[in-house]
């Protein structure tokens, strides 16, 4: 389960993360033993422009919570897996013929836009809207 919203994220951010590229991926897997794979769901992923030391050209935001989808889309899919009708069919065929037919994929089903305000090389300021940046929901497809 994701750890609170991104606001809480900033408070817990460790000071001076070691690597220059800090792609913060956090996923508390309650039952993460390899044999019992987790169901497809949304996990936290925070892209920190601040930790990337890009704040000399990015005015806002400090970063954004992108999230990602991870988990198993296995038979029986049940109704809460946000699956398409065909994904259910795909699991049936995979169930029968697992060697050659793949399971459906755990992917974003709803994505949000964000806006970023930054300087270009000539110190002009650009405010741009970027679509499909933040995962709102995951599902089997």
């Amino acid at each position, binding site marked *: 389960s994701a*750890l609170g919203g991104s606001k809480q994220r900033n408070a817990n951010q460790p000071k001076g993360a070691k690597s220059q590229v800090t792609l913060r991926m956090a996923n508390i*897997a309650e039952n*993460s033993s390899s044999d019992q794979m987790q169901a497809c769901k949304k996990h936290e992923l925070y892209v920190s422009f601040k930790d990337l030391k890009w704040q*000399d050209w990015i005015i806002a935001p400090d970063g954004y919570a992108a999230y990602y989808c991870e988990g198993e889309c296995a038979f029986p899919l049940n109704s809460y897996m946000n699956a398409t009708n065909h994904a259910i069919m795909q699991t049936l065929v995979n169930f029968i013929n697992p060697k050659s037919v793949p399971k459906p994929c755990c992917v974003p089903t709803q994505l949000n836009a964000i806006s970023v*305000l930054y*300087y270009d090389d000539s110190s002009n300021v650009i405010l741009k809207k970027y679509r499909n940046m933040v995962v709102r929901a995951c599902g089997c497809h």
Partner: protein
Amino acid sequence: NFTSDNEFHSSFIHRRLKSQERREMQREILSILGLPHRPRPHLHGKHNAAPMFMLDLYNAMTTDGDENRYSYPYKPIFTTQGPPIASLQDNNFLNDADMVMSFVNLVEHDKEFLPVRRHHREFRFDLSRIPEGEAVTAAEFRIYKDFIHERFDNETFRISIYQVLEEHSDRESDLFLLDSRVIWAAEEGWLVFDVTATSNHWVLNPGRNLGLQLALESTNGESISLRVAGLIGRSGPQNKQPFMVAFFKATEVHLRSIR
């Protein structure tokens, strides 16, 4: 190394990233932002007028709850002829914009042409770095007018803005009048001029971008320096510097080039 000292347990395999991998990762994030490389701006003072204006727009866009409807945060002063740009005051251009860009003023000359004494100030903006496939939907030139003590409150000036069409070494440039209005000596705030058509012309014909000219006259038609009416230039405070802002809409679907 994603989260070596991070207190969250992660199901990811922890390993140290090679510097090449780190660079590749940064390049991927830059490509998400549509940037070929990391910009290196020479000025990044966040107290300049343009960045402050753009930060207001950013905050309006991101904190108005529904990210799709936001209100234009910057109210220009309305002169005697009513709102300078009625079309720009309704918010559709802001809601519809995929991108907004403010441009720093590259050059400024306060000139005086003789024998007929004509004061004017020239401004230049570089609109050549606009990403492909973006069309200007609205554009404004903004200049700040200070309150001026030495003049009578009810005194008025006529301010006119021109697009420079052709420059000549021996005589005045050929000009095209964009807008002209009366301002009060006692007024203070941002004067906003609609330069949408001019900006589109410059985007399509970068070579024809010869800048703008601003001229001021007293009520009896005498040409006077812009400083007299309190119009701020490059020597003025950073948060009152003149700038241009343009709103863009993508004209085509961006297909990422094959790598």
